[in-house]
């Protein structure tokens, strides 16, 4: 085959340009840290990548949801704890009042404390977290769940016992509030008010029945707290699972599309030396012609 100067120059230009495009590819991979920059680089990786990204972002979103779940549950739990303490005190007062040794004045004092405790409990039932009533089912805004008149008597108790549910993993929604009606029912406040009235009355009423009602309410509260506690345990399990999922989703995404830096650097170095060799060979091949040796 007859080889001419123009063939050599054309070939050299073509090879240099393909060598440049290889360098460009490796530089891209190094600077972005990704194997691919366009779907056509590898359609399969691109498609998988889109899917993995959604998975990663889903898991992140669920983790954010969990923090909201914890917010609800922790607040509900601590408020129920306070409720139990207040109820215990009420029970103690009922026991004290019922032993019959107290005079009227002393019973008045007890009644005053009972009234204070009732107000405290109303406050708890009306707890707002981030502007939301946590003991009012899904009616988290608007009118408070427990309403009182000027004299502090309970006039109404909301009946919204709907569950507030938050999605924690794909398709799993978790109830985050407690069923307020099981604790702060209308009866609950009426019973306390009845206890206070009984204390204030002149007649030496038998207060034993109030001990029993306080016991019932304490039980109700404890039951609700136990239920909440069980759900909190479940949340912890879910948190662990999400953490594992997050790690594996990120790993899959990274395995799929992240460039192997060592490999790319080695390829880049190899390509660099190929490029240098091509340049120096070009300068040697193209320059001399017969002309250089004719005198």
């Amino acid at each position: 085959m007859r080889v001419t100067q123009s063939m050599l120059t054309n070939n050299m230009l073509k090879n240099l340009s393909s060598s440049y495009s290889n360098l460009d590819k490796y530089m891209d991979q190094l600077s972005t840290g990704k194997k691919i920059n366009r779907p056509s680089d590898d359609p399969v990786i691109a498609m998988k990548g889109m899917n993995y990204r959604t998975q990663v972002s889903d898991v992140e979103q669920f983790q954010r949801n969990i923090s909201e779940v914890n917010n609800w549950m922790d607040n509900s739990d601590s408020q129920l704890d306070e409720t139990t303490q207040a109820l215990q005190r009420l029970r103690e007062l009922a026991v004290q009042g019922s032993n019959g040794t107290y005079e009227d004045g002393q019973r008045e004092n007890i009644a005053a404390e009972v009234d204070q405790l009732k107000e405290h409990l109303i406050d708890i039932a009306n707890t707002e977290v981030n502007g939301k009533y946590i003991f009012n089912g899904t009616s988290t805004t608007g009118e408070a769940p427990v309403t009182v008149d000027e004299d502090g008597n309970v006039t109404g108790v909301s009946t919204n016992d709907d569950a507030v549910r938050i999605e924690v993993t794909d398709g799993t929604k978790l109830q985050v509030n407690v069923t307020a009606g099981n604790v702060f029912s209308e009866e609950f406040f009426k019973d306390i008010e009845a206890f206070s009235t009984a204390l204030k009355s002149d007649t030496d009423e038998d207060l034993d029945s109030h001990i029993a009602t306080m016991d019932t309410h304490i039980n109700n509260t404890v039951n609700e707290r136990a239920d909440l506690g069980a759900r909190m345990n479940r949340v912890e399990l879910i948190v662990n699972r999400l953490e594992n999922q997050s790690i594996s989703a990120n790993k899959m995404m990274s395995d799929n599309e992240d460039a192997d830096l060592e490999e790319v650097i080695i390829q880049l170095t190899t390509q660099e030396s190929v490029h240098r060799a091509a340049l120096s060979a070009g300068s040697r091949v193209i320059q001399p012609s017969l002309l250089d040796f004719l005198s």
Partner: protein
Amino acid sequence: MVSTFSGLEVAKRALSTQQAALYTTSHNIANANTEGYTRQRVNFEQVSTLSVSRYTEGVKSDIGSGVQAGSIERIRDRFLDVQYRNESSKLGYYEQRAEAMAQMETIMNEPSEEGLAYTMSQFSDALQDLSTNPEDSGSRSVVSQRGQAVADTFSYLSTSLEQVRGDLNSQIDVTETEFNSILTQINNLNEQIGSVEPHGHVPNDLYDERDRLLDSLSAIANVSVSYEKSSGQPSEIAMGKATVTLNGVGQDVTLVDGNIYQVNHMEVTSNENNNVESFTFSNPNDTTATPVTIDAADYASTGELKGLMEMNGYVDADGEAAGYYNEMLSDLDQMAVAFVAEFNRVHQNGSNLTDDATGDFYTIDPAATRPAATMAVSEDIINDPKRIAASLSGPSGDGENAIELSNVFSKLQADYEVPAEGLGNKTSIKSFYESMIGQMGVVTQEANRMVSNAGVLQQQVEENRSSVSAVSLDEEMTNMIKFQHAYNAAARSMTAVDEMLDRIINNMGLVGR
């Protein structure tokens, strides 16, 4: 018996022939880098040794009477030209495809943090946030803004793709003009060649120019070339006039007729949606001739024009809009319409925070040419995010409908109340979009691969052609030395003859005086 002065004549012929060869060498060197130049060589011919005499059959002398420069020939292999032009058509076709697909990839911009997939995932996250805080007006505003971002991305993609189609269409116009101009130039060259050849001349420069034009033409469309002999007494190595026909269009379309010096110009007709409808070939100088019309669906002549047509979009045999950009755009439309319909349906299932009934979240015009471009979040929601129906049962603390809304992206078609057309039962909006991008990746990858394949093949043929036709400076140098020496030797031989004659004329017959 040799004539006394024939030696001078032989030497003279040798001088002028070597001179012609030297000049041709010089011409080759001068044109070493001229595009489309074919190296030339002088055909040396021995001068007939037959000498005239009074005998009827003549007397054959044993001594030759020198050399003369015959024709000057281009060294070229026509078969390689055919190969080169075939590869060049393929390369042109795939280059246009690859270029247009690369533009589409840039517009779709996946995988990235700016693409539609990311915007949709952000919107879905915003809806999840809303579900945990349905009473918060801040999360509602975020939902309405991210929802708008999704609509914006849809319409951005749709209008950008449409814009590229417009660019492709004007590129078709430019290519058409170039095509026609090349045809006219070839026709003009035919006329010039046809007027020179009958006198026995070989117009190498015109042949080179014509071959160069044919090379450019073949990149635009697949053509075949045949040659008509000129009238009169053309040289044996004269190429003749070229007749160019278009291949792959179902019938013979003569673009340049070498016999009658006529040319048929091409005109591309597009409909109102920028889709190529037909190609018309007509003689610009003869309006009475019936033009040949070829439907876009039948136009299969590989080359830049076909690549552009397929990317830009054309009307196929069933009268439908075909072409990859059209496909992508209609996929986007299908996706947008299906998504909006389902999203609105789920949205209307829920209740908002106002006293008014829940309306649509998105508005779209499914009857528009490109529905995706008309997508937007409804005015009511933008003005009052309280109208977002996050709740399923009604109270403000219920965010379950927001969860349903965020799940629309990954919901299978089979679970839709009203299944959308064309998406397939086992597909969700998200996976449909993923498959769109995957398909685009595969098509682009294929186009890129074919570009490099066709490029390698074309380069190989080009190399073979260069091997035959290109100027090698070393070779020319060698020839130059060869011819120079021959020239010097011829001059020397003339001197010898001169001295010989001097001896005869001035010094002979003096018998030693």
